[in-house]
């Protein structure tokens, strides 16, 4: 009668996706993302007149600063506001699986919204020669970036029951990561180096150039794990 409790991640993920598909907010966010990215891509392509995906990757990285907090803002906030977290955590579900389901569901939506952008690759490829390896590395960079950002967004959402506040906190956190390597001139020495290393854009740059460096992979995985652990710790404190 009872099945393996490992199944709870699958059950939770299914519920997250079902609710995401039934609420208009995810569709609105994806459509707005695709419209803006499409406009910026076309505008940049015809302005620069160069067959390259670099501007698309750079702009998408910046758009993720807004797009991902908009997707993750409801993940825990909505559960707090409706009280449904009380139902979830009184079932035999571990906190880790609960957080993993939240991360995976938002991440899958980000991945799904990136799929139509392959059309841009086809357009650029038809206009000139692009290096498939660079395109692959660029997408891989975006996927790693999305993992870190989703994790930070879910953490922000676990701090409050107000979705707008969750969005602003996530935007603030991500903006700090984004801006760090752009303000290194304000300081010198090891502090400047640390700031640069902590910046998300710094690690993305090598992906966009077509290089997959293990240090960059470790950085993004580290950010993902760091914020997931923070979420777990925060939820633990909340129920004490």
């Amino acid at each position, binding site marked *: *009668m*009872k*099945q*393996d*409790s490992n*199944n*709870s991640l699958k*059950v*939770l993920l*299914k*519920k997250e996706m*079902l*609710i995401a598909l*039934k*609420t208009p907010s995810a569709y609105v966010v994806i459509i707005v993302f695709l419209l803006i990215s499409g406009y910026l891509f076309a505008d940049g392509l015809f302005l620069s007149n160069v067959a390259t995906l670099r501007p698309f990757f750079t702009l998408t990285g910046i758009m993720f600063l807004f797009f991902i907090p908009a997707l993750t803002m409801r993940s825990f906030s909505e559960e707090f506001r*409706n*009280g*449904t977290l*009380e*139902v*979830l*955590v*009184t*079932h*035999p*579900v*571990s906190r880790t699986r609960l957080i993993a389901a939240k991360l995976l569901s938002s991440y899958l939506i980000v991945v799904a919204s990136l799929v139509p952008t392959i059309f841009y690759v086809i357009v650029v490829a038809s206009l000139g020669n692009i290096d498939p390896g660079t395109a692959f590395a660029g997408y891989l960079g975006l996927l790693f970036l999305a993992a870190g950002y989703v994790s930070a967004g879910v953490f922000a959402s676990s701090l409050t029951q107000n979705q707008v506040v969750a969005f602003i906190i996530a935007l603030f956190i991500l903006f700090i990561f984004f801006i760090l390597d752009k303000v290194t001139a304000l300081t010198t020495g090891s502090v400047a180096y640390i700031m640069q290393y902590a910046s998300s854009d710094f690690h993305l740059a090598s992906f966009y150039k077509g290089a997959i460096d293990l240090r960059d992979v470790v950085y993004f995985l580290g950010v993902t794990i760091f914020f997931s652990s923070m979420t777990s710790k925060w939820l*633990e404190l909340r*129920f*004490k």
Partner: protein
Amino acid sequence: MGLEIRGVSKLFGSKTAVDNISFQINEPSVVGFLGPNGAGKTTTMRMITGYLAATEGEIAIDGQRVDPAHAGLRSKIGYLPESNPLYTEMEVHEYLKFTAQLSGLDAAATSRRLEFVVERCGLREVLYDPIYRLSKGYKQRVGLAQAMIHDPEILILDEPTSGLDPNQVIGIRDLISELAKEKFVVLSTHILSEVQALCNRVLIINRGKLVLDATADELQHRSTGLLTIVVKTGLPAEKVAETFQKALEPSRCSAKKNGGTVNVQLSLKDSDEVRERAFDLCVTNNFKLLGLSNSGTDLENLFRELTLGSDETGQQQ
């Protein structure tokens, strides 16, 4: 076997929400949890379910300690929270299947239990409706179905009949009574008549402390009876109440004028014995007696005594 709460306290900052509560439930029954708002009922229930950790003391189910950090024991508990939170975007069957699978039921058990709870909670006609479209009564039934779908040993129901119409209330009470033949049911309610109708045992909690732990029989002995007298008289209600108060000395007396009649309610230790004296009093005072009934236990009075006694400015229920 069963549920054991040993010296459990819960502090939120410096505020004590639950103060050294202990009780045991060793056999299938309905235990009613009563208390004014903010007395600590919901906090205690949340600690039993593992939603909140106790600051002190221990909660054990079948001898195993409940620990919020470990999910294992939770499949033994079915919980209907006070606010009945639901994923309103989901359809009823989707939600119930989700909670069944979350409790670890496989596909076959899920469909078998779904069939059972749908039948028992009367959800057949709304099974494919999104929850946001349901009335409050149906939502409450979905919450109750969620609590029992995985066939738990212990049911913790925080105000299970809230928002239901009288017919639904009777249906749900019947269901709870039947479930209690083989399950441990702990329910909280504000409806005192519900406690009398349903519970084998009553726990009254006030300001975080357990002030009464009594079986239904003990409660009957302990509490006063309620005698209702309807008389026809030209006198004002206060005058009639005064007459009964002086002669019968009830612990509580209230009178209400209704047209030409006055409805008097008396709380008495032995309301059966007093009936004859009440009749004589009506004759002596020339009150035309239209009705005299003994409504049994005045739990309301006992509740007031226990929860207002030490609180002069306390809120009444």
